[in-house]
């Protein structure tokens, strides 16, 4: 066969294959619309559910609960079926009457890490409205070839002159304010307006030694390219995907502890596909779904279901620090969940910090 023709045939064949493969979701009998974080957009996670249920899952990823709430406000009731939301904002969604109660007996609540059940966030009047699906830590990521790893065990290193201009700060005020509070010996759950002046001063001190404050990509890039050697607010979600290229990148929970974040999943009250949406939630919370979610291409983090360990390889578990979780969970505090008024004040302090 002449080479150009062979090449042309191969191209046509490949195109047909792609069309046929794509057709399986495109020709699905039903659609499910999910408002999610970017880790849910990994086809490795979604395709098995689509095939098993002959459904097309339409995913819209967002950043920031405010953005999600705006999207919901601008939508018609019933537009959305599944909601992935920051664990600390679930009460906000329950209060806004967005979520449907979930059948407790169909959820693997007993398989979750106990700290991730979070009834205060997920339940109201005895009804479960959301379930934790993934969690991790906002703590200190660093390049162990460039800094003294022993220094990273003390949270106060984040405002230490020793690493001036070698520190990046993750641009999200709640976890970083939580880390500063922990460094000052203040429990994150008890933060109040009276604490803000002290936190503000300490943030300013941190700014004076920081090289930059950046979002996920900017922070990761800075750490990966050697622009900085320490990332405040980092953790496995930043370093796990980078250690393949640079094994010197590491993260630690300091002696004082760290800040724990988590994301939750629930079903919209107005969804017209309650049963299918519940199936999706159950799939995501299943050991297989949890393992895929934990190692999603957007970012890695710990699955909330302990049984996911059966479906993770040893290198994956090592990257996630699977065997250290008991100690980490005991030391970590959930990041601040302020009232709307305190939230506004914290954001204002953060804006001052950025402008400082």
């Amino acid at each position: 066969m002449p080479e150009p023709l062979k090449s042309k045939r191969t191209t046509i064949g490949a195109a047909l294959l792609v069309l046929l493969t794509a057709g399986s979701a495109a020709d699905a009998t039903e659609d499910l619309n999910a408002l999610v974080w970017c880790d849910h957009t990994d086809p490795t996670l979604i395709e098995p559910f689509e095939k098993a249920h002959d459904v097309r899952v339409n995913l819209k990823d967002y950043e920031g609960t405010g953005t999600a709430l705006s999207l919901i406000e601008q939508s018609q009731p019933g537009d959305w079926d599944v909601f992935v939301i920051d664990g600390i904002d679930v009460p906000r969604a329950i209060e806004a009457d967005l979520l449907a109660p979930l059948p407790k007996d169909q959820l693997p609540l007993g398989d979750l890490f106990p700290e991730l059940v979070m009834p205060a966030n997920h339940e109201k009047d005895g009804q479960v409205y959301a379930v934790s699906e993934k969690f991790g830590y906002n703590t200190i990521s660093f390049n162990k070839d460039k800094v003294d790893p022993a220094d990273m065990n003390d949270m106060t290193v984040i405002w230490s002159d020793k690493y001036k201009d070698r520190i990046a700060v993750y641009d999200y005020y709640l976890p970083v304010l939580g880390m500063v509070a922990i460094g000052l010996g203040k429990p994150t759950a008890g933060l109040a307006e009276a604490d803000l002046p002290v936190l503000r001063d300490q943030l300013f001190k941190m700014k004076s030694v920081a090289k930059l404050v950046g979002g996920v990509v900017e922070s990761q890039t800075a750490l990966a390219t050697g622009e900085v050697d320490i990332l405040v607010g980092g953790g496995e979600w930043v370093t796990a995907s980078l250690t393949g290229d640079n094994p010197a990148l590491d993260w630690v929970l300091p002696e004082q502890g760290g800040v724990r974040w988590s994301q939750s999943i629930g079903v919209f009250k107005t969804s017209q596909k309650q049963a299918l949406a519940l199936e999706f939630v159950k799939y995501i919370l299943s050991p297989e779904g949890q393992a895929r979610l934990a190692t999603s291409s957007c970012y890695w983090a710990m699955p909330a279901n302990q049984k996911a360990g059966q479906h993770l390889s040893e290198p994956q578990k090592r990257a996630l620090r699977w065997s250290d979780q008991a100690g980490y969970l005991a030391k970590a505090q959930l990041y601040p969940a302020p009232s709307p008024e305190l939230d506004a004040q914290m954001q204002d302090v953060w804006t001052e910090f950025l402008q400082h």
Partner: protein
Amino acid sequence: MSRPAGHSWRAILLVAPALLWTLAFFVLPFAVMVVLSLWERVGSQLVPSWTLANYAKLLERGHFLAALVNSLEVTALVTALSILLAYPFAWILAEQVPKRWQRLALLLAVLPFWTSYVIRSYSWLLVLAKNGIVNQALLASGLIAQPLALANSRTATVIGFVHFFVMLLTLTIYANLVQLPANYRRAAADLGAGALRTFWHVILPLTLPGVMVGAFLTFVLCIGDYITPQILGGNNELLLPQVIMLQIGRRADFPTASALSIVLMLVVTAAYLAAARWLKLERA
């Protein structure tokens, strides 16, 4: 003599699509934004309190006002640098490149526009990093002993902006330069003017409309841009669009964001009024 009624109805029908478009996609959203700017976010609710409190925040909070000042400074710097770089570039394209190569040269000049704006900004972040190509080249040449702190700074933001807007200004100035009849230069030479004097007294004044159109577009696009300072600035200072985005991200404080956006629009309007003389829109 009065016009026939059918004529005026036809005119209205012809104008109607543009009018409806403007009403639906500019006037209506703008009115909503004005209304929202007078409301307040109280807790998790938007309350129609009809107050100017959101505007007052700009004066009460030093970091909000600083963001506006930073935006004006960066925009002025970017506009000035872009003009200084774009003018000679446009002149070379129009005067020094043979006619048959000008289209290709223009195509090459606008090639960077074909790359995504976000990707271009991240590329600059890598180029300007401590281990980036700029620092590597300077270190290798012995010009510096330590890497320069170029990335994550105002310098990086300005470089990112200028790279983009030089292309835009080049196009507007080039379009103006190629329309100038060669007779003007010959006449100036006949009258004894040298090249520099001809440029200063003839070419430059006649190309000012092109410069001003490009400068105005640069000003408007630069002062409202969020992506470039967010990626390249390292949050070491905030510009006003970044402060606006901060209000929306987590708390969905649309009233404050709307008030700050209207302030930004007022600044753009002031810039338009200042440049209106040169924009020559009345020709239309």
